[in-house]
């Protein structure tokens, strides 16, 4: 195709969108250059922003996996997924608190904070949170979504919102509306220093665990029979059923996997932010959904990239882009940055960063 042909094929919408995108990019670049030239922040501080972003983003990514996998297989947005995450964090709190009282995580108890007891404690917490989140996710599928499998697409969406409220207020009824404070794990305090850069131990743990889980999930889906069944059902339910794949079972497994990831995210969130309450799932849920769209919904590596991308820009963006433009208290506008990123990505890559090509049937 020659250049003139391409130009002739352009329509007004595309041109407008490119202009908007160009303007946004211009301001982003301008702001970044000014912020860096101003020199208010040391390289160590820039590095800090980046690391905060990675740890926050890897939690978004873990939750986003749940959205993206369910979307991939059922073509529905499971808006109750944030609550699956919340249930894991809030229920496990009581166990964590009890373990803390017995001195598993610090030197108050008789055991002392040995590496072994902390490790054991964390593994138990992860296991319990995974179990709870998985159970909630699977029940959700069985009770709220399966009866509506054949219904128009709007119906399960509304059900998901209803289920989200139901879970929130169930948690409120069961556990009360207080803010619960997770124990501060002694061995996760402190920082690791390389020259002028330093990273908190807890952030390393969060990022490494999250990335390991994501790689594990990716391999599971790509390499195992069950994983391939998920991919097959996502591709075409009827054809998969004809090939002898149990579609219902595969869907349940998908929900369970998403729930497990949310359970891991719940504990990572808990050891990083140390707060839990019944409404905690809402905002991470929305952010993770955004991350899933950013990366290309329905795509597992996309959710991982989208989460990290969103986390990093939320953390770095306000200071990097807005500080240099002379905007006061830029951190208040971090959601604007996050959604502006979404606009930019969708303008230049409508299917997300590494989004799949949507075939006619899927779109």
């Amino acid at each position: 195709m020659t250049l003139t042909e391409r130009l002739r094929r352009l329509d007004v919408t595309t041109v407008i969108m490119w202009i908007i995108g160009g303007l946004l990019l211009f301001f982003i670049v301008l702001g970044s250059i000014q912020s860096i030239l101003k020199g208010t922040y040391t390289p160590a501080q820039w590095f800090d922003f980046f690391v905060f972003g990675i740890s926050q983003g890897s939690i978004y990514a873990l939750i986003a996996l749940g959205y993206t996998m369910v979307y991939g297989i059922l073509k529905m947005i499971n808006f109750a997924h944030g609550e699956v995450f919340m249930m894991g964090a809030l229920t496990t709190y009581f166990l964590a608190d009890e373990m803390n009282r017995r001195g598993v995580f610090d030197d108050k108890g008789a055991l002392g904070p040995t590496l072994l007891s902390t490790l054991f404690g964390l593994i138990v917490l992860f296991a319990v949170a995974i179990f709870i989140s998985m159970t909630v996710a699977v029940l959700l599928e069985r009770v709220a979504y399966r009866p509506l499998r054949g219904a128009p697409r709007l119906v399960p969406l509304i059900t998901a919102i209803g289920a989200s409220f139901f879970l929130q207020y169930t948690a409120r009824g069961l556990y009360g509306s207080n803010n619960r404070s997770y124990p501060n794990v002694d061995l996760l305090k402190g920082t690791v220093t390389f020259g002028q850069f330093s990273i908190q131990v807890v952030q390393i743990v969060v990022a490494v665990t999250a990335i390991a889980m994501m790689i594990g999930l990716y391999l599971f889906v790509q390499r195992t029979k069950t994983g391939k069944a998920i991919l097959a059902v996502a591709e075409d339910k009827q054809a998969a059923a004809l090939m002898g794949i149990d579609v219902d079972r595969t869907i349940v497994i998908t929900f369970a996997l998403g729930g497990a990831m949310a359970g891991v995210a719940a504990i990572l969130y808990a050891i990083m932010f140390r707060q839990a309450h019944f409404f905690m799932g809402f905002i991470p849920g929305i952010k993770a959904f955004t991350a899933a769209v950013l990366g290309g919904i329905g795509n597992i590596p996309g959710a991982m990239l989208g989460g990290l991308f969103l986390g990093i820009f939320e953390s770095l963006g306000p200071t990097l882009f807005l500080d240099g433009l002379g905007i006061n208290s830029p951190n208040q506008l971090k959601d604007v940055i996050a959604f502006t990123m979404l606009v930019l990505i969708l303008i230049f890559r409508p299917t997300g960063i590494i989004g799949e090509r949507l075939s006619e049937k899927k779109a």
Partner: protein
Amino acid sequence: MRKRLMLLLMVLMMVLVACGNAVSPETEDAAGTAVSEAGEAADAAADAAAEAADDAEAAVDEAMDDAEEAMDDAEEAVDDAMSGDAMANCEADELGCVTVAPGEAVNIAYALVISGPNEPLGRDSANGVEMAVEAFGELDGHPINIIVGDDGCSPEGGQTVAQRLTADESIVGIIGTSCSSAANTAIPLVTQAGMVMISPSNTAPALTAEDRGDEYAGYLRTAHNDLFQGRVAADFAYNELGARTAATIHDGSIYADSLQQVFADRFAELGGEVVAQEAVNVGDTDMRSVLTNIASNAPEVLYYPVFTAEAGFITSQAKEVSGLEDTILMSADGAFSPDFIKAAGDAAVGMYQSGPYVASADYDAFIEAHVEKYGTVPPSGFHAHAYDATMILLNAVKEVAGMGEDGTLYIPRTALRDAVYATKDYAGLTGTLSCDQNGDCATGEALAIFELTEDVVSDPDNNFPPAAIYQPGTGE
């Protein structure tokens, strides 16, 4: 292409919503100026007061005369009521009339935050309201009934609860809201419905500013004004802690924004330097970025008058950010609860909070009764203010209510509102309360700075509230 256009529109809308959630700069500016103006006005008033001490005496005499006249009027009104004109008087009332049939309950309502992370703040006030109603007993043979509303601690919540409560014409008055941002949207509706609303814990200056406008006519409060709280906090930071640089964080709510502005203005006025005024969003969890921004200015004091959840995140993360290790942390009454301490954890040791402070024999008796009734000490700091607010409302109802021959109670709304405004030298738990024409009923004494010690932080449920270490007037 149409699909893409729709998508673009949707995304743009999302951006707009996100922008809207962050406080629009216009309102922020407006609030800022209002605050500074009010601050100036307060200063000017103080000067004038010093000069005009003599005049004041004369004025007091006059006021006394006025008050006596008013009393006479009120007595006459009561006489009228007694003589069987209650119904006619009440029905002629321009804001409307509440009739309570014999044996039925008089309805008052509360609009407090009784769900979500700020629940302790609202629960605390709600307990105060319940105890006041219990202590008040019956009103001329009618029991008092409380209708429950939730202000959600947000502008939307305030509007919703006000719409619901004002639709019920049997409600005579409302205790609420918990949060200033909810008050801002609720007040116009309440005023329009002719009801009167008394808040136990709204502290934003604009709500009772002199130029607050007619739509605020139905609103009063027993909580302290933040013009006072911010001043005390700044005085404490500058004089007692010896800090010369400070930074503030607000969450975009009217309460936090205006309080930090008062603090910053006063701190600068004292000679200190405000190095940063940052903001976060309600619902944010990762405060490390904003704290790193602030750390680049290395302030000696960090003042963040935000609510429980965000204050918890800021406190626990502040100590982890390099450059803030030695910064003294200070928050305010919005996070003055055991829940905040639990959320912040060990990082809260050694920080300061400004909050309501009440000390009297009556108050001790109240606490005992509270423990007996609810099994715990009050979960936050505004129970006494709520108790006083309810008592003021119920006393005013009692004063204006006229009894029909068959035992029907007639409560004229205009008279009720005037009676609440006319409250003078009421001996409440928080001190001696008198309401001024702008709706401020607080004594201005019931406030202190508290230090969170190891004891309180290790067992906040039982050792709350912490010990007061500084009270306005006792310092310099």
